[in-house]
C-alpha cells in the first residue's frame, strides 16, 4: 500500500487452524457438546475411581429404583438391576467399555480404510475401479445388516462384533480418503507442486494431506458415533458383548424383560447411549461447519 494514510488500520487475516477454532467456538451448541463429550471421556478414563461398586458385584437389593423414587435407596444412585448390580457403576464402566471398543473399531477401520483409499487414489485405474465397485456395493447395503451377517458367520461375542463393525466401516474411509485425494489432485496447486519437481511422498505429505484432513476428521467423528451405535445395537440383539459385560446395548437387552417392572433399567442406559451419540454428532456437525465442508 503505497500511499495509505496511517490512520486507517489493516485487517488481520487469521491462519487456517485458528480460523477453525474461532468458527467452532462461535457454535455454542457444538462447544457445549464438546464439553459433555469430554466429561464422558473423563468418566470412561476414571471409571474405577468414579464407580462406587464393581459393575458385576451383586447386592441384596434387587431392582431397587433410583434414589429419587420413594422406594429408592441412596446407596444406589441410579438403582440396581434385577440381579442387584449397581446401575450407576454399570453405566460408568459401560462408558469405558463403549468408548474403548469404539476407539479400537475406528482405529482399525481408519488405518485400513485410509491406506486403501490412498492406494486406490494414487494407483492405476483398474484397481481403483474394482475397489470402487466393491465399496459402492458395501456402502449400498445396510451396515448393521452386514455386521449382523458377519457376526452370524463368525459367531457372536465381543471380539467378533468389533471385527464386524470395523469391516463395515472400512469402505467409508476408503471412499472419503479416495475422493478427497482425487479432488485435490485435480487442483492447480498440485499441478504446480508437481511442476516444481516434488516427488510423490512429498506431494502427499505436504500438499494433499493437509487439505484432506478436514474430510478425514469429520469422517472420524462420524465413524466414532456409528461404531458406538452399532456395537450397542449388536449388544442389544444379543450378538455383541455378552452379559455380564456392562456394555450399554447389552444392559438394554437384558433389561428389556423388565420394562414393565423396572423401567429405569431401560431408560437410563439408553439415555447414556443417546447423550454420547448426540454430543459426538453435535461436535461432528460443528467441526464440519467450522471447516466449511459440504456433506
Amino acid at each position: 500500500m503505497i500511499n495509505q494514510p496511517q490512520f486507517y488500520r489493516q485487517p488481520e487475516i487469521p491462519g487456517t487452524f485458528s480460523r477453525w477454532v474461532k468458527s467452532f467456538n462461535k457454535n455454542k451448541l457444538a462447544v457445549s457438546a464438546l464439553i459433555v463429550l469430554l466429561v464422558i471421556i473423563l468418566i470412561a478414563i476414571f471409571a474405577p475411581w468414579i464407580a462406587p461398586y464393581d459393575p458385576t458385584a451383586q447386592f441384596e437389593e434387587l431392582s431397587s429404583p433410583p434414589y429419587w423414587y420413594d422406594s429408592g435407596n441412596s446407596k444406589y444412585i441410579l438403582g440396581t438391576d434385577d440381579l442387584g448390580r449397581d446401575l450407576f457403576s454399570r453405566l460408568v464402566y459401560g462408558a469405558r467399555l463403549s468408548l474403548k471398543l469404539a476407539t479400537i473399531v475406528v482405529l482399525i477401520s481408519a488405518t485400513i480404510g485410509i491406506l486403501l483409499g490412498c492406494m486406490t487414489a494414487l494407483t492405476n485405474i483398474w484397481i481403483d475401479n474394482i475397489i470402487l465397485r466393491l465399496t459402492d456395493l458395501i456402502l449400498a447395503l445396510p451396515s448393521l445388516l452386514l455386521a449382523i451377517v458377519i457376526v452370524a458367520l463368525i459367531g457372536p461375542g465381543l471380539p467378533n462384533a468389533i471385527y464386524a463393525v470395523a469391516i463395515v466401516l472400512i469402505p467409508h474411509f476408503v471412499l472419503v480418503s479416495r475422493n478427497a485425494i482425487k479432488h485435490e489432485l485435480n487442483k492447480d496447486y498440485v499441478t504446480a507442486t508437481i511442476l516444481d519437481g516434488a516427488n510423490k511422498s512429498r506431494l502427499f505429505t505436504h500438499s494433499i494431506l493437509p487439505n484432506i484432513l478436514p474430510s478425514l476428521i469429520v469422517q472420524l467423528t462420524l465413524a466414532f458415533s456409528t461404531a458406538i451405535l452399532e456395537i450397542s445395537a449388536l449388544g442389544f440383539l444379543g450378538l455383541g458383548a455378552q452379559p455380564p459385560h456392562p456394555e450399554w446395548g447389552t444392559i438394554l437387552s437384558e433389561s428389556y424383560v423388565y420394562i414393565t417392572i423396572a423401567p429405569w433399567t431401560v431408560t437410563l442406559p439408553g439415555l447414556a447411549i443417546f447423550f454420547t451419540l448426540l454430543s459426538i454428532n453435535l461436535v461432528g456437525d460443528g467441526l464440519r461447519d467450522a471447516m466449511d465442508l459440504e456433506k
Partner: protein
Amino acid sequence: MIINLFNLRLMRLLKWIIISVLLAGCNFHETKSVKDNVLVYCSEGSPETFNPQLSTSNTTFDASSRPIYNRLIEFKPESTTIQPSLATNWEVSKDGKSYTFNLRKGVRFHSSHYFQPEREFNADDVIFSFERQKNNDHPFHNISSLKFGYFDSMGLDKLINRIEKLDDYTVRFILNRAESPFLSALAMDFASILSAEYGEHLLAAQTPEFIDVHPVGTGPFQLDRYQPDAFIRYKANPDYWEGKQLLAHVIFAITPEPSLRFARMLAGDCDIMAKPLPIHIKAAQKHDNIQVISQPGLNIAYLAMNTQKPPFNNQLVRVAINHAINKNSIIKAVYRETATKAKSPVPPNMWSYDQSLIDYQYNPELAKELLLEAGFSSGFKMNIVTTNAQRSYNPNAKKMAELIQQDLKKVNIQVNITSFEFGKFLSYTSNGLHQSALAGWVSDNGDPDNFFSTLLSCNATHSGTNAAFWCDHSFSELTAEARSKSKLNERLIIYKTLQKTFKEAAPWVPIAHATQHFIVNSRIKNFKIASNGGAFFTNVYLDNSNKKSHNGD
C-alpha cells in the same frame, strides 16, 4: 413427461390422509364383538411339528396333542390320575404283559378342506398310530427328519411285542415284560391317535409328509391356519365326541419374548399368558382383571457337571461346587421366590421324594477346602453352557449362570458362560461337548422313573438325556428293577436308595423346582394346567358379562 408431484393440491391431500390416519389410530377403542367367543393364548414359541409323536417339547404338545388329538387314556387335568378317553375301559392281564382296550364308538375325525373322513375312529387308527413309531418299515416311519423322541427313549419299541386288533373296537397290547409305568406312558402326548384313513389318503396323493403338517385328529379343536413364528388358529371341532366346545376359536399368539407376552396380557391382547416370569406374577397381582393360576411343577432345574471331563470327573470337585452355589439367592433373584429349593432329582410333590435327604449347605469356605483337597488350590476355569430360551423349570438360565459365576468366583473358579438357542443347546449337550450345563426336566407322566432312568441311567448317556454323563451301573440296574415292580412300596424303597446314591456321587447341583404359572384374564373360566405344566383349553369358556374396555384400567 414431467411428473409434477409436488403441487399444492397434492400436499393438501396428503395432509388429510395423515389426519385421518391419526384419527383412525385414536378412535378405535370400542370393545370388540369378534373377541367374544375367541380365546387368545400367548404362547412361548412355535411348535416344531403338529404331530406330538415327533416331539418331546411341551410347546409342541400345547399346540398339537391337547387341542387336536386324543389318546386312548388321558391324565386328568391338574393331576397324574388316568381317565378314559378314546378307550372307554381296559384290562391288564395278571402277568402284567397284556393290556386290552375297549374303544369308544361314534368318534369322528376332523373334517377339513384337505381331508373328509368317511369312517369313524376304530382299532385300525390305534394300530396305525403305534405302528408308525414302532415299525421301521412302516410307510410313515421315516418321512420326518424329527425322531420319535419319547417312544424310542422309553424303549417302547423293545417293550411292545405286538398290537392286536381283536375287533373294530377292541385292541390288545402284548408286552415283552411286565412294566408298571406302561399305562402312564399310553396317556402321554406322544401316544396320540392319528387317523389311518388320512394316512392312506396321503399315501395315495403321494404327500405322506403332510400328516405332520396338516393334522387330522379327534380332539376338541382342529387346525385352521398356521403362520410360523406368528400365530396358530384353531376352530372348534363341530363333531367332537364330548360335544362341541363353547369357544369358537382358540388362537395361539406366538410371543417368545416374555416381557412382550406380559405387555400383551396387560393390553388385553391375550387372554392367557404362558410362562410368565416371576416378576410378572408379582406385577399381575396389582391388576384387577387378570389373575395368576399356579400349580407346583413336576420339574427340576440343575447344573449338570460332565463327569466324563476334568475336573468334574473328581467327586470332591462336584461336592465343592455343590457347597459353593448359593441356591437361596438364585431362588430369590431368578425365581423371585416362585420355586422351592431342590436337593433331590425328583420334586417334593412326586411320590418317591425322600424328605429326609440331607442337602449340601452353602459354605464357600468348605468348598475351598474340598477344592484344596482335590488338588485345585488355585482354582480353575470352567465353562457353563446355557440356553437363552425360557423354560418352565428355569425362567432365565443366563441370569442363573451369571449368579453362579459370581458364587464360584468366591472360591477362585473362573466361569465362562456360553448361551445357545434351545435346539442348539440340546444338540450340544446331548453330544457331551459341554463341561457343565444348566439343564432341567419336566415330568411327562408323573412317574419317578421318568427322572431316575431318563436323566441318570447309563442308557441315558447314549440317548443324550443324561447331561452329567454319569454312569453308575448298580444305579442303572436298580432303576430297571424299580420299573418292573408293580407294588408302589417296593419301588419307593428302591427310589430312596437311589436318591442317597445320587447325593453322594453329586453329578448335579440340583437347584430348584419351579412352580408352574399362567396369567389369565378374569373372563376365562375353567382353565386348567396339566401336571406337566401344559395348557388345557378343553371345556374352557368365556364370561363376557363385565366387558372391560380395551384400554383397561
